[in-house]
């Protein structure tokens, strides 16, 4: 018999967005946070570069310039009012973090220091501007710790190592609860609440080379998808150019910001050919495509010819130790390469999901082109799509997204708690979850989930990565279909109730397959190239037909429907994306 817990509000996921929402909520209503990890393990902690806001502490800056950069950086798929809002609220969001104790680096006069970062400019692109606030090269870690500290201060109720496996909706479609699996005991729990905020992060683990943690398996989007919620702009995935070869571990953009150069196997600085003006500081998607091209033309290094190299050997060793200590350590520890006098092998790595659960600027999940809100359901952070990043995210905008929209979702969720009654959960709420789990547990023999996962990851890397085409995507769609069919026959060896990570990894694979399916279907539909979505059969941007967001949803019979909604325009007219 599953235990039922009733709260006013639930937050699913305890990363930056989740904890920011929880802080906002727990000051006003009875809140619980459900996380499959302990909060400080969340991947927000891996972010390095910084969090941006137009504070103007070191040079003149305006929120309006920030909004423009976000829109242009998103290749004009960004909803402009949302970008404007985020840029304006950024300022107080940063000050709030500092007031809570975040140890930002400081200017000589004691104010929060800011540095340059890719894509952030003054006067709409005239020159780079110092907008990124940072804490050494551990900004994400500091944000995660600071938010957790504020949760400890408020004695926020955490349910750690509880996996959210299903969303419960009442007869009117409102979100009224979730079903969660307690890893420690194998028991199912029903959580009822008036407001539910999803903040579960991304789904980079569908690719074999990714900067994402193993835990990032698209749980929130998949759970919502399975209950009829559409997913927006799933094809938009960011491939960061400088990940450690084979491992995918991120080497921050700050390396290129400090003067690092990307080279091919002949030692050539090939970005001179692809972006003659700003060369290695071109936007991430452009550099990734350039690396891809070099590899395709046979100038990739490494045993399989699929590496490029990051060269920081010409930088002052002091600069390297002070400003790039983490990436130096990664290169030394994981590849046994000494970056001060050797080139570091790199590969584009699957880094960030611009798409996800569609929301409005208050974090409310909305359905369809008409953007009808689903009462009680919210989403924030990487799992949500406001859309504030469009087709490509600028560096430092993600940590900002977490705190701005995490807060806004918390605020509106609290308002909803005060106005709405507690909804009913369906009869037999754990039925679907139980049958999913028991099907796997009771199977004596079958497919190995690890094999299916590896094939998904390898094929997504080959067919749906930096460069795509109708041929590669339709092949991928077929493969996903086969993998899903095989997934239905997975058996595991751990049949126990305690800490059955075997079972949970299998469930997570199911989520990944769903997210991959949504991604590939949406990518096939979008017959243009924009931001992180590049197709060599449609290499140009097509504003006449494609200034719209894709909305994919799964019907009851398993087929996928596609809908679209227009991009919310504003003062910025789409221009060619030159830097």
């Amino acid at each position, binding site marked *: 018999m599953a235990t039922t*817990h009733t*709260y006013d509000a639930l937050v699913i996921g305890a990363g930056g967005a989740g904890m920011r929402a929880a802080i906002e909520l*727990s000051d006003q209503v*009875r809140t619980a946070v459900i996380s499959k990890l302990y909060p400080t393990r969340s991947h927000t902690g891996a972010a390095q570069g910084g969090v941006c806001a137009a504070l103007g502490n070191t040079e003149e800056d305006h929120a309006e310039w920030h909004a423009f950069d976000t829109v242009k950086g998103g290749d004009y798929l960004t909803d402009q009012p949302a970008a404007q809002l985020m840029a304006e609220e950024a300022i107080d969001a940063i000050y709030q973090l500092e007031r809570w104790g975040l140890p930002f680096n400081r200017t000589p006069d004691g104010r929060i220091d800011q540095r340059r970062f890719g894509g952030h400019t003054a006067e709409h692109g005239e020159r780079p501007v110092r907008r990124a606030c940072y804490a050494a090269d551990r900004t994400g870690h500091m944000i995660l710790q600071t938010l957790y500290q504020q949760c*400890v201060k408020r004695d926020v*109720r955490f349910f*750690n190592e509880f996996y959210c496996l299903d969303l419960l909706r009442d007869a009117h479609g409102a979100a009224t609860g979730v079903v969660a699996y*307690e890893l420690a005991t194998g028991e199912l729990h029903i959580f009822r609440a008036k407001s539910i905020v999803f903040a579960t992060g991304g789904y980079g683990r569908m690719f074999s080379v990714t900067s994402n943690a193993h835990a990032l398996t698209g749980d929130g989007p998949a759970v919502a998808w399975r209950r009829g919620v559409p997913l927006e702009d799933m094809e938009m995935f960011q491939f960061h150019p400088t990940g450690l070869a084979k491992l995918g571990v991120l080497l921050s953009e700050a390396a290129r910001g400090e003067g690092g150069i990307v080279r091919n196997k002949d030692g050539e600085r090939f970005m001179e050919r692809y972006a003659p003006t700003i060369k290695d500081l071109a936007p991430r998607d452009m550099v990734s495509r350039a690396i891809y091209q070099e590899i395709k033309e046979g100038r990739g290094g490494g045993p399989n010819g699929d590496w490029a190299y990051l060269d920081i050997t010409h930088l002052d060793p002091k600069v390297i130790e002070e400003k790039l200590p983490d990436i130096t350590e990664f290169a030394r520890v994981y590849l046994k390469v000494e970056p001060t006098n050797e080139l570091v092998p790199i590969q584009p790595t699957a880094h960030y999901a611009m798409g996800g659960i569609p929301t409005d600027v208050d974090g409310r999940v909305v359905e369809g082109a008409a953007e009808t809100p689903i009462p009680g359901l919210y989403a924030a952070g990487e799992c949500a799509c406001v859309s504030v990043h469009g087709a490509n995210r600028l560096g430092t905008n993600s940590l900002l997204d977490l705190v701005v929209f995490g807060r806004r979702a918390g605020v509106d969720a609290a308002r909803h708690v005060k106005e709405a009654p507690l909804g009913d959960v369906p009869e037999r709420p754990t039925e679907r979850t139980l049958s999913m789990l028991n099907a796997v547990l009771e199977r004596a023999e079958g497919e190995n989930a690890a094999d299916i996962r590896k094939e998904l990851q390898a094929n997504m890397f080959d067919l749906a990565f930096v460069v795509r085409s109708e041929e590669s995507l339709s092949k991928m769609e077929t493969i996903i279909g086969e993998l899903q069919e095989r997934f239905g026959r997975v058996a595991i060896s751990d049949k126990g109730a305690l800490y059955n990570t075997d079972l949970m990894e299998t469930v997570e694979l199911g989520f990944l397959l769903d997210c991959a399916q949504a991604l590939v279907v949406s990518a096939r539909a979008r017959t243009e190239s924009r931001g992180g979505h590049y197709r060599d059969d449609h290499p140009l941007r097509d504003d006449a037909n494609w200034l719209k967001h894709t909305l994919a949803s799964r019907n009851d019979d398993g087929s996928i429907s596609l809908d679209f909604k227009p991009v919310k325009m504003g003062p910025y007219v789409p221009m060619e994306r030159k830097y």
Partner: protein
Amino acid sequence: MATTIERSTTSGDGAPRPPRDYTRGSERPVGGFELWMWLFMRISGIVLLVLALGHTLIMHLPSGGVDRVDFGFVATRWASPFWRSWDWMLLTLALIHGINGLRNITLDYVRKPGTRFAANMVFYVLGFTLFVLGTIIVVTFDPSNWPPVA
């Protein structure tokens, strides 16, 4: 099966709490018994280095070594208040330093509170007894009245 209350990391029930005042305790001084003992161990340790090493050297090094330590030797030494004080300081500091050390070891390794209490009591009683005996001797020793007549 373990309940969820044990597995979670907070004791709250999720309800909003009013802000607490974290400065209310600032009138009481920081530190306390543990601080004193920590400081005492370090200072007495240095002093004991001199007292105990000195004592050992005096007993063993000059020609004759410990063989020359007899009643007369002690009587001569303890004619001077300086040596009596030295020896009393050695007694007191070594006992407190040692007993506190035992208290710390007990705190580190003995789990059950009852056993810890018992062990500590044994140490304190032992220590106190030795202190009393030693003090009596150092203070009342009179070579012309030995053994002291009751």
